[in-house]
């Protein structure tokens, strides 16, 4: 499943990303690259800007300055309104996002939640879309819930459906914004399993999370962010067991002693 073409251009390239909300600087000159198939975890205290960085990748919260590139295409191109909208809508089809609060569409059942975008944007026929939905649901282990409405699902099930919905668009990269933070502890494991499975299938993933253990077991790289900058980064063994920076050590001490 690894596509080995274009290995000299980084898959995801973020250059000098900066973001301010009014007078508040949330991201301060962040540059990073992600290779195809890499699994990156971003950890840090609240307010560090990790969610903001993630949401800047698919232009949900566009950067104040800096560039975001995906496979040689600039995502946050400055274009006149109509062209910008068309461009962004197109690029977003290649980026899947999973939210902390799932954001499933309550007025649609699971099947329709998953098939809505493929049918509307990729012109899939109903039959093809249904087949796709069944495949994705089987992938996350919820085939029997296909005609159920979201209100009938547990938190963990909702999140798995959300993942299936994002995967149905066949994205090149998956972004996870604290995907398990809103779940009861017993329900976290089923979502982590799905994410582990995705990792094994070599999906490029960027995961913002509070769960250090999960990050350590799944990710190739860990970024520690604090106050809008990347303080330290490296493989999980280094960051979690032998961090270099004082701030990293403080954060981990506070977090892991809980």
């Amino acid at each position, binding site marked *: 499943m690894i596509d080995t073409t274009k290995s000299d251009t980084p898959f995801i390239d973020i250059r000098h990303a900066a973001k301010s909300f009014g007078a508040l600087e949330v991201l301060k000159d962040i540059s990073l690259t992600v290779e195809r198939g890499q699994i990156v975890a971003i950890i840090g205290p609240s307010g560090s800007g990790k969610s903001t960085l993630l949401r800047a990748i*698919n232009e*949900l919260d566009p950067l104040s300055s800096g560039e975001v590139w995906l496979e040689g295409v600039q995502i946050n191109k400055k274009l006149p309104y109509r062209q910008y*909208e068309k461009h962004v*809508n*197109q690029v*977003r*089809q290649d*980026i*899947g*996002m999973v*939210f902390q*609060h*799932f*954001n*499933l*569409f*309550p*007025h649609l059942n699971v099947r329709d939640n998953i098939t*809505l*975008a493929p049918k*509307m*944007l990729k012109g899939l026929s109903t039959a093809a879309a249904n087949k796709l939905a069944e495949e994705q649901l089987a992938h996350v282990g919820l085939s029997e819930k296909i005609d159920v*409405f979201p*209100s*009938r699902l547990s938190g963990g099930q909702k999140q798995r459906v*959300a993942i299936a*919905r*994002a995967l149905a*668009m066949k994205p090149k990269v998956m972004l996870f914004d604290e995907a398990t933070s809103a779940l009861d502890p017993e329900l976290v494991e089923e979502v982590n399993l799905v994410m582990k499975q995705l990792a094994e299938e070599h999906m490029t993933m960027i995961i913002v999370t509070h769960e250090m253990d999960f990050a350590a077991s799944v990710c190739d790289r860990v970024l520690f962010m604090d106050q809008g900058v990347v303080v330290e980064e490296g493989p999980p063994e280094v960051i979690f067991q032998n961090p270099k920076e004082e701030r990293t050590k403080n954060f981990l001490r506070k977090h892991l002693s809980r």
Partner: protein
Amino acid sequence: MDTDLMIRVYPFFIEAAYVTVQLSVLTCLLGLACGTLGAMARLSRLAPIRWIAATYVSLFRGTPALIQIFILYFGGPQIGINLDSFAAGTIALGVNIGAYMTETIRGAIISVDRGQAEASRTLGMSRAQTMRKVILPQAARMMIRPLGVNINALIKGTALVAPISVIELTYTAQRFIGSTYKPFEMFLLAGILYMIIIYVVGQGIKWLDRRAQIV
């Protein structure tokens, strides 16, 4: 209480009630149309359109509906608009209640969780597609009851066309009070009919609201 009189004149009130219902239905339809347009305009990304809609709401909610009716019916001919009292009343009331409905509909749209739009846009859907398939279906369910409140006010508001001599319930009551000097009886006849109309419509709204609830 002069029940004989009431029995003798109630057919006039029944006929007048029919006119009140017509006024209510037409006003409601026009109001919903104005309200939907107004809400969309209030939410437009173009500032001038937003401003026009906000001005519409402010002017029509900030002045008496009776004056609005008078401007259209009595003042209209001066600018080339010649309408009969029924049409003038309906249009004026419809545009008036449309201002209130604009806020109701807009409120419902805004109250849909932000995450819904985010999820939809993230999948690649455009603003228009998001509005059509994700936001509006959810907003529609939420706006039924508050629109019911608007409609309740609208039905009572149809009485305002009595001063321009539309033969509806309030006009009929006034007319018969004038000729029979029995205000209590005439009030009761008109009042009961208004309440029946409001009750039936209210039940309809409740039914619609129930049906709209998601499984």
